């Protein structure tokens, strides 16, 4: 077999477990698989940021300093119930995400299948409503696919798309403050009732949490009971 990411030939580990449970062999070589770092250990209760390697001053009890700020703001308090992320956004993940999302190598998503699903079911279950963060129409055309939706599809649960997104310049060009100030780019695409629904937003990367909170706000306004999120990586 050839590795899905580096294309080097490798021998997938075949054990009795694979044989007996019909579990699929890994589509990545040992080296590429090992280059992803999963998030575990102590994390911020809200945003899922790992506390390991974080300065003490950035932590207050069970929360990170960023989330403390969010919670102090009446407008944003408890908008996002919790976020969980599967991997650290390390150099390797940056490279892979660039290949997947910007170069458009859709097939890469398969590499995240097992661990993304496992992380989802660790915190949520199939009673939650799955909502991928949408792209603007322009961006969707440019990329050819929505990476958040590709992740959502890994879960094999019904997907809801109640949101649409206005086209803005690329986020990465803006600072955190600018992002905080920007008005909400999301709106409800149709009059759908979300009354009483528990929602899990899906996105590729949690950086400042602004995008997810903006989306969450719109959903709460439409009656959602709670909004949480899961992302592939935590920046």
């Amino acid at each position: 077999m050839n590795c899905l990411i580096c294309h080097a030939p490798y021998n997938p580990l075949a054990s009795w477990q694979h044989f007996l449970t019909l579990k699929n062999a890994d589509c990545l070589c040992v080296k590429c698989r090992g280059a992803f770092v999963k998030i575990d250990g102590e994390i911020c209760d809200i945003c899922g940021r790992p506390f390991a390697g974080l300065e003490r001053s950035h932590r207050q009890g069970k929360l990170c300093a960023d989330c403390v700020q969010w919670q102090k703001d009446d407008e944003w308090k408890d908008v996002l119930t919790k976020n969980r992320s599967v991997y650290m956004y390390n150099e390797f993940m940056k490279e892979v995400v660039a290949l997947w999302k910007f170069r458009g190598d859709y097939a890469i998503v398969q590499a995240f299948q097992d661990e993304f699903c496992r992380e989802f079911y660790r915190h949520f279950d199939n009673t939650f409503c799955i909502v991928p963060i949408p792209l603007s129409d322009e961006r969707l055309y440019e990329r050819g696919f929505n990476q958040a939706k590709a992740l959502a599809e890994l879960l094999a649960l019904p997907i809801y798309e109640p949101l649409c997104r206005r086209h803005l310049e690329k986020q990465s060009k803006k600072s955190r403050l600018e992002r905080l100030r920007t008005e909400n780019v999301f709106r409800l695409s149709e009059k759908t009732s979300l009354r009483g629904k528990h929602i899990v937003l899906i996105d590729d990367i949690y950086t400042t949490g602004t995008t997810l909170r903006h989306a969450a706000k719109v959903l709460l306004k439409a009656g959602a009971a709670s909004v949480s999120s899961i992302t592939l990586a935590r920046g």
Partner: protein
Amino acid sequence: MRFIVDKGRLIPETLAKNDKDAKPISHIDFPPSIQLTPGFHYSAELLSFVEGRQLLLEELPFPLDLIQAHYEHGYLSYEKGIVKTKHGWRCMRCGNEDGRFFASFPCARCHTVCTYCRKCIMMGRVSECTPLVVSRFSFPQSRYLSPLSWNGTLSEGQQRAADAVENAIAQNGELVIWAVCGAGKTEVLFQGIARALEMGKRVCIATPRIDVVRELAPRLKQAFANVPLIALYGGSEDRGKFAPLVISTTHQLLRFYRAFDVMVIDEVDAFPYSVEPMLEYAAAKARKEKSSLIYLTATPHPAWQREIRRGTRKAVTIPARYHRFPLPVPSFEWCGNWRRQLKRGSLPRNVMAWVQSRIETEKQAFLFVPHIDVLEKVVRILKQLDERIEGVHAEDPERAEKVQAFRDGRIPLLVTTTILERGVTVPNIDVAVLGAEDDIFTESALVQIAGRVGRSAQYPDGDIRFFHYGKTKGMVAAKRQIERMNKEAAERGLLKTQ
């Protein structure tokens, strides 16, 4: 992007009045091109951007309706990016037909499950709904009078090859230059390139290796001081430009289409990669239908060697180095089951002795090993002998620093996996291979490795030792190839007579 067909013409759905039958371009049968409309007021800016190229729409900084108008008047054409074949798919940009390098996705551009090529994805995605835009029009090419400002002299062997190159270029022929490592291949091209530029031809030198592009560009710039030259590789500033003299890596070449009158392919069979099918495809696509094709190689493929010997493939050999000393010939030395020894944390005694004697006599050396895991173990053992010994491999982040340290003499012996360091010509070194029987050491790889030794005129000799656990055909063929070259050089009187 989807198209509709109206009176034999393709129209992008966004420009069509009625888009209900829009389909991805790969699903449409359409005539190859439209006749050129004389008198059409074309955009010279657009046409010179596209000339000799095959580009994605997103690579063209022009509005779609302008592009479409040029298509409708026959100045541009759209081509399928992915084509269905009997066994699967073919990417028309990079030539990939390997099923493992195709994948499908739900495409937001054409609303179908769209197959794309993963092989050339780094240059932007080509999928079933991706049109490739090519030019159907070319501007007159400028001629350069006596463009060559180089005034070095060629050896006898080089001169004969240079004449053959010039001939092939003038007659749009095909030619292999088989030149031993250190023969001075680049200079052999100068005379022919000069002739091509005088005739108003466009010349491309293609190589799989980015290091070669970087090394060749300044030398050619110096030799052809008044001719615009561009060097294309990932991240180079010249991307998107065009010039009468182009040096390019495989990937960058993929964006060209029927652009060159002279195509020179350097380092055919460059170790460790035997000729990439992608380079072959890219070069074929980037050449004009009527053009010359020159291959430069130090170690042609065995099949080519046979054809050359039989005379069915036109070739010129340069069997001697420019300094006119014969090539040093490798010797074989059995070293037992070195892998087992390595597991126990030691190296065969004769290998250790070889290394020790280089250290003692302060002669620098390369030690080639087959794989990275072997490399790490070997370095650990040798460091006990001399702390300064280092290992380097293709993906080593400190590769450049270590190679520089070796050049500066700060590292007495460098253990290495690949011949990526082949550009490193350090005078007066010895070379050994540990595990020369490994599959990775093909005939051409071993010839290239041996070619590291004796490159300078002051130190034309050196030791080449292949430590092995069972002689292979590749080893024997490599030695025979070197000896044969020496014999031919002697017969042709290309060697110094003592």
